[in-house]
């Protein structure tokens, strides 16, 4: 069982490299490469247990203001495994000349700045949390991870992998796992876990794009470009633009990411494909961002950030993310705005029909449910995630809407339904029988 894999979603370390890549290397690498891959895959129960304890007690970030101050501290594990290790650079101290130390410092700063300057977020927890990073973790360690409390980076083996601080998007990725933990706290399993990975990729990429002053059209949309040493047939770890094309190499295998729901991975490996299926929401974001145009962190990034902050919960799936990003885009930039349409286009391109609030037109009624209780009626509508409650406004009004839903269901007729979020629940309030 890998360092980055366990049976339990809360035990997982959130690693930049997926376990299947290291497993390929452990099978197909040279003797030295196999040894290092197995080392990286080795069980680290103590670290996982710590991660589990931290994740389980994390709650959504408070909105109360805290003093804004960037507080970066870089430690070196001195090629051991004790965290955090020896302090080597604190906030405001000059560069050390150690590339890993200085890249971790600068990358943490760029990530803090994106969240603060663009989204008014005060560090990982929105309360000014100290940004702790450890470099030189273990010997020739081929990975980087967020353990629930800090970022940790290996040096890489120098043969297949360079040092893991070399790509600023990896730093942004790891720190964003911390932001996710303090907001939706998406469970690290199946679609919620893939969303967790996707949000980390999205904001990791945005940290890189902002540091390079790249527009969405100029960005390479690769995660981990520069991480692989020469001779490895890889552009990066993942491609948000073209999932499944980032690498194809005899030693590390072929990028398995799907770009469409038709190809979604349904196995149990990699925590239900958290690093695999993240390609689907990644591509949705790429399409939305490029269609909106300009700097991706400004509009597309804000839509994704506010969705993560306010709309998603631990078990949210892709459909929920699609619906909520669409709703947030409408709230921020206007119903049927170009931005909202771009979000819709992004999700539809990966096979998810977006169902936002407001009118949902020309839909079939999938199921209708009622009980003996007064004003108790529910329905599932084509293209809309989950059961919708008929708004319990009046007894006869609920009966009338239920009647329309029943008839539509029984006669295979289509309806227009109007959805409103009322007291936190999406409700049907009006209906046309077509």
């Amino acid at each position, binding site marked *: 069982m890998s360092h980055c894999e366990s049976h339990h979603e809360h035990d997982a370390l959130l690693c930049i490299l997926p376990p299947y890549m290291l497993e390929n290397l452990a099978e197909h690498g040279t003797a030295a490469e196999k040894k290092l891959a197995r080392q990286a895959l080795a069980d680290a129960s103590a670290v996982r247990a710590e991660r589990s304890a931290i994740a389980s007690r994390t709650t959504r970030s408070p909105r109360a203001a805290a003093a804004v101050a960037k507080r970066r501290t870089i430690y070196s594990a001195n090629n051991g495994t004790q965290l955090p290790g020896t302090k080597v650079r604190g906030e405001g101290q000059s560069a050390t000349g150690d590339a890993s130390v200085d890249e971790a410092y600068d990358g943490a700063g760029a990530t803090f700045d994106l969240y603060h300057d663009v989204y008014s977020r005060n560090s990982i927890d929105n309360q000014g949390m100290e940004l702790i990073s450890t470099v030189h973790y273990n010997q020739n360690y081929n990975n980087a991870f967020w353990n629930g409390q800090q970022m940790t980076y290996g040096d890489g083996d120098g043969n297949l992998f360079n040092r893991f601080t070399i790509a600023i998007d990896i730093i942004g990725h790891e720190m964003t796992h911390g932001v996710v933990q303090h907001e939706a706290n998406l469970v690290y399993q199946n679609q919620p876990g893939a969303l967790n990975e996707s949000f980390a990729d999205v904001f990791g990429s945005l940290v890189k794009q902002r540091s390079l002053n790249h527009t969405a059209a100029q960005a390479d949309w690769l995660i981990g470009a520069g991480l692989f040493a020469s001779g490895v047939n890889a552009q990066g770890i993942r491609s948000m633009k073209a999932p499944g094309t980032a690498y194809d190499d005899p030693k590390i295998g072929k990028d398995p990411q799907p770009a469409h729901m038709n190809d979604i991975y349904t196995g149990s490996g990699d925590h239900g494909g958290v690093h695999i299926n993240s390609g689907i929401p990644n591509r949705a974001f790429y399409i939305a961002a490029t269609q909106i145009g300009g700097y991706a962190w400004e509009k597309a990034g804000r839509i994704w950030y506010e969705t993560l902050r306010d709309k998603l919960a631990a078990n949210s799936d892709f459909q929920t993310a699609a619906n909520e990003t669409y709703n947030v885009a409408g709230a921020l930039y206007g119903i049927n705005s170009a931005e909202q349409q771009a979000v819709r286009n992004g999700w539809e391109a990966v096979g998810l029909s977006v169902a936002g609030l407001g009118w949902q037109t020309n839909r079939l009624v999938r199921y209708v449910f009622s009980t003996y209780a007064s004003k108790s009626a529910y329905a599932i509508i084509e293209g809309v995630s989950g059961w919708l409650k*008929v*708004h*319990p*406004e*009046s*007894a*006869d*009004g*609920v*009966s*009338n*809407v239920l*009647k*329309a839903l029943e*008839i*539509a269901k*029984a*006669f295979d*007729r289509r309806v227009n339904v*109007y959805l409103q979020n009322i007291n936190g629940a999406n*409700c*049907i*309030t*009006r*209906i*046309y*029988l*077509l």
Partner: protein
Amino acid sequence: MWHSNKLVKYTYTATVSKFGYAIVEDVNGWKQIYPSTPDGVSNLFGLLSVAKASNRRVNVFIQEINSVDYITQAYLV
């Protein structure tokens, strides 16, 4: 006035009380079911919706009340 042997084009309702509308063939525009009683509106709305969904015809009585035309009676034929 009775409008006989007509198709129901659309029905519309909401969760507010005594609220139902329909468009009936050869009758101009949306016509509200007269909001007299909750169960009366529900009964007429149900009848009109079944007619719509099953392509059955209806006889509807359109009555002017306080200068507004309402649906007040219907037969499912």
